[in-house]
């Protein structure tokens, strides 16, 4: 047969017509330089022209994925902007009935939009299954980035309702929602931290420091995505997409996915933050070494930090937060994580993932309240193990597939020795050899790289110029470009 797996993955590159992922050549070598050049050139003419230029670039960026939902997104922007203007003009505080009606309509319609596009078929499937009905599935195509731009606009409407914000010019509101670095997969930015930057005239000329830091961060993110996440991805499929994985394969695949989703999403976030930085816009940090967390609460302070911030601000606190007693606090926490799980996707696997994390947070609170503490290594191990098990539900396509992997992890599907450990076969004569790949070698490499880079982590992350660092970042970029034999989508695009 012609070609192996490498050639096969290579071919996918040549299959794609117009592809505008951050890791695509079209984006890196054509769109980005053009967008940067046009933006700063337009800014030199006037502040407003610059914003319009960036809106146009962002719409082109979105249109490269799908033109069908541009009208929907623009309608959503106009609707939310209209609601916020009406709210701003309405007198009275949060107790005003008119303001309450407006904010309810605003938030409600956003949620309805999200619900329709994301959860209709899930709802129909469950109604059919519970009541034996035969309603036809609608197969509605999910608009790219809807979960992100809907959340950001809900936050904006609520802030205006609370009087914490007032509507800017429509173009500034538009670019807050449309700005292409965060448009399709976050980070979930807050209106207050973004709009003010677009209003600042001192940020309308290119800055060497931002260009350098942004490009350096983009190189690191690109490397994480292409060289690390996509490598781990090759180990994930055999365990999750096959039937009844054996013990080592199940563990290998689940660990590989744990690594894949981290490098994929944190790499994407770093690319987004770096891109924004080149435009002189600072995005909030989205990851802070989450797998070093010592408890589940700590994990959520480090993982997808902008989502945690949003859920805390616009869900947990409005539910009552910790102001309504101990029991209610635990309930609010659980609800917040349950809804956070559902936000990720319309399937029972995401519901279970949310339930697991909600239950984990509640258990952690109860544990902490009693003043109990685990030794650090044990606390880290327990947290990592919990997160890893929960990711099984996040990755599996069906509940049965998740249970098959978990069954494998507890040995229900037997034990086979991976080929890479064939040297151990004489010592373990009772084990058969498996022809599936094993993730151990890749994990060892990551662990070594992590340990080796640890002392220089601060230096690396501060992106200070000087020495060989610029060449180092360029090296990461070149490795990612030349060794990225395929253009794979980012995991968080599906949400």
């Amino acid at each position, binding site marked *: *047969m*012609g*070609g192996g797996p*490498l*050639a*096969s*993955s*290579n*071919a*996918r*590159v*040549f*299959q*794609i*017509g*117009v592809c505008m992922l951050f890791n695509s*050549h*079209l984006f890196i*070598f054509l769109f980005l330089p053009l967008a940067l050049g046009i933006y700063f050139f337009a800014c030199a003419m006037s502040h407003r022209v610059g914003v319009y230029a960036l809106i146009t670039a962002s719409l082109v960026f979105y249109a490269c994925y799908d033109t069908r939902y541009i009208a929907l997104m623009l309608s959503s922007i106009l609707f939310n902007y209209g609601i916020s203007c009406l709210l701003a003009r309405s007198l009275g505080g949060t107790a005003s009935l008119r303001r309450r009606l407006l904010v309810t309509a605003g938030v409600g319609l956003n949620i309805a939009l999200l619900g329709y596009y994301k959860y209709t078929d899930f709802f129909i499937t469950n109604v059919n299954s519970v009541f034996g009905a035969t309603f036809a599935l609608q197969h509605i195509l999910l608009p790219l980035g809807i979960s992100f731009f809907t959340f950001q606009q809900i936050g904006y409407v609520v802030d205006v309702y609370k009087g914490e914000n007032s509507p800017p010019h429509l173009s500034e509101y538009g670019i807050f929602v449309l700005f292409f670095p965060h448009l399709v997969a976050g980070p979930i930015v807050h209106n207050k931290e973004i709009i003010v930057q677009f209003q600042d005239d001192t940020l309308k000329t290119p*800055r*060497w*420091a931002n*260009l*350098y*830091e942004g*490009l*350096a961060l983009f*190189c690191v993110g690109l490397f994480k995505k292409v060289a690390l996440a996509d490598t781990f991805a090759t180990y994930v499929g055999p365990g999750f997409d096959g039937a009844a994985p054996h013990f080592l394969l199940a563990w290998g695949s689940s660990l590989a996915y744990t690594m894949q989703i981290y490098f994929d999403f944190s790499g994407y976030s770093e690319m987004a933050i770096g891109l924004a930085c080149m435009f002189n816009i600072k995005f909030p940090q989205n990851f802070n070494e989450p797998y070093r967390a010592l408890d589940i609460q700590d994990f959520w302070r480090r993982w997808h930090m902008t989502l945690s911030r949003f859920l805390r601000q616009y869900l947990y606190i409005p539910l009552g937060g910790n102001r309504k007693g101990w029991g209610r606090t635990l309930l609010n926490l659980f609800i917040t994580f349950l809804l956070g799980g559902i936000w990720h996707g319309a399937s029972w696997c995401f519901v279970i993932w949310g339930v697991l994390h909600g239950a984990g947070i509640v258990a952690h609170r109860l544990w902490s309240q009693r003043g109990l503490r685990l030794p650090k290594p044990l606390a880290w191990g327990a947290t990592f193990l919990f997160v890893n098990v929960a990711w099984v539900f996040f990755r599996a396509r069906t509940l049965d597939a998740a249970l098959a992997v978990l069954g494998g992890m507890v040995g229900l599907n037997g034990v086979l020795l991976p080929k890479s450990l064939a040297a151990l076969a004489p010592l373990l004569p009772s084990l058969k050899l498996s022809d599936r790949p094993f993730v151990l070698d890749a994990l060892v490499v990551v662990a070594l790289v992590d340990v080796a880079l640890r002392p220089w982590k601060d230096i690396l992350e501060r992106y200070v*110029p*000087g020495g060989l*660092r*610029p*060449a180092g*970042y*360029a*090296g990461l*970029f*070149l490795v990612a*470009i*030349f*060794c*990225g*034999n395929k253009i794979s989508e980012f995991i968080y695009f599906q949400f």
Partner: protein
Amino acid sequence: MQYKRAFLTLLAVILLGLAGGAGLNLLVDPFHLLHRPLWGPPRFSGNQRYQNAGLINSYLAADLGFDTLVIGTSLESAFGAARIKDKLGTGRVLVLTMDGSLPMERSALLERAFQTGKVRRVLWGVFHNYTDMESDRTSLEYAFPYGLYREPLSLPGLDALWHYLLNGWVFNKSVALVAGTSKWSTDMTGLYNWNAQKIRDRVFESFNSPESLAQHTMDLSRGKAMIAWARQNLAQAGEVPFPALDKHLVQVVQRHPEVRFDIVFTPLSALAFHLFTPAELMRQIGMQQHLVRVLGREPNVRIFAFQDDVEVTGNLANFWDTMHSSYLVSDRVVDAIAEDRHRLTPENVDAYLARFLDWLYHYEVYSDRERSLWPTADTAQDLR
């Protein structure tokens, strides 16, 4: 100033690295997509999905006398270019087969080849996946680089070219070619011909071992009822849609009346038909009826089928699995085409299929190496 220098250094190293890598790929061009080798003898990859694009761009399109193509899968890979040229009296022949390829891939390749304006004749092997109900099915296992088969100056063509030049996998091939460590073949005509005698003999022995023959006998007995059912329902077999066949073969042929097509149902072993499901068997049969019905009267089309060549299809010793036969069988097919034998026409197709199914129903496992077309160590040609 410090940041300015750092940014410019970062950018410069990136640009230099890109230019260096892309420059080497451009200069060496291992798959000959842009040009034939600038120095040394040409070397060709067995990676058909990539190499075929280069063969079209740099050999078919050039004035090197190529005017005939062999299209198909691994079943047609052993068709000898020299034999076709001699027997059919064509110009030079390019074998552009792709192992395990899909209908859409083969038509994409052909359309690109037609754009060169050089193709006069096509010998087209019809694989059983033309019965697919999904006309545009793609393969993830052996993904096809469609971009390389687009007009080089189109947007997708340029996009693919860009990826080709900035590709580490291609870069490794370039380095190996420059360093002289590449083991790629220098023989273009027998490039895809599986002629590694040792491997082939080993597979042959395995397929024809006593244990395998016992298994084949069991398979055959299970298939009898299905064959009987197919015989009774032969008339309806072609009365169903064949979207993949229509879109990726019939319409391609109809778009190119200036090209002469010899469409071939390459012989499979009798056993292969017993292993289909009833639905698959009916679609195999129906596909032949359908194809002959829609193309059988076209003046530039001839259709050939060889299942009734029982000396080939009935003797399992001609095969190393249920479908792949000795390259001497391919030679026999080429000879028959040259002599216009084994043709299917609207007048004879139903009788041919009825005769074939009758024979298939009564077929018993038979493997005789002495009477086979399997080459011996003495008679094997070194096609590499």
